């Protein structure tokens, strides 16, 4: 079955430190891949997406992600975390097709220490 796994439920980093959030997918073929951020009381916001081509994709708010086919991974990174980055992060995948329905991972909660 198609699935997305985020191995880390909770991560704490210090402000200014680098960040990497892990995401692994299990699909028959390479899916479309997404990272979303969810702040309390807010809707999910798209950070970045990968469809094809360059395996390093840039997103909003200084985030980037790297697609690695050999590892079935799509990890999210940020060189220097700001306190406002504290939120829940979701990796998602879609097989494409006409609907575009998303399959989400369980999410990773990011806490930022001052």
């Amino acid at each position, binding site marked *: 079955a198609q699935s997305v796994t985020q191995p880390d439920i909770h991560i704490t980093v210090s402000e200014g430190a680098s960040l990497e959030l892990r995401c692994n997918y299990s699909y028959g073929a390479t899916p479309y891949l997404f990272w979303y951020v969810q702040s309390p009381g807010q809707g*999910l916001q798209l950070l970045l997406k990968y469809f094809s081509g360059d395996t390093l994709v840039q997103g909003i708010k200084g985030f980037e992600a790297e697609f690695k086919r050999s590892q079935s991974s799509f990890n999210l990174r940020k060189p220097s975390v700001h306190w406002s980055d504290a939120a829940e992060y979701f990796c998602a995948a879609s097989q494409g097709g006409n*609907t*575009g329905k998303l399959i989400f991972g369980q999410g990773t909660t990011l806490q930022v220490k001052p």
Partner: protein
Amino acid sequence: GAGVSQSPRYKVAKRGQDVALRCDPISGHVSLFWYQQALGQGPEFLTYFQNEAQLDKSGLPSDRFFAERPEGSVSTLKIQRTQQEDSAVYLCASSYRQGAYNEQFFGPGTRLTVL
């Protein structure tokens, strides 16, 4: 001209009651999705509309769940005879066109609590 809106934002229902959750997508968006997000989990797909046509309802957990989008804009998710396991945040999303390459814009969700 704002984003996706949902109402009510919070709903408390007694077990066995029927509830109706509303989604106003971004004007002109063809595609509309409903997701269910249980506490501490990622959203799970419920159903998909392209205009007024419900093309995929494979994620609806039981026949107590029903969704409609009669005029191809506003959508309503109805849950009949609510159960405690229905407690979750229900998210609506819309996109301009069909297909995964079109960004889905999410509403803030409706938090349903069934007592």
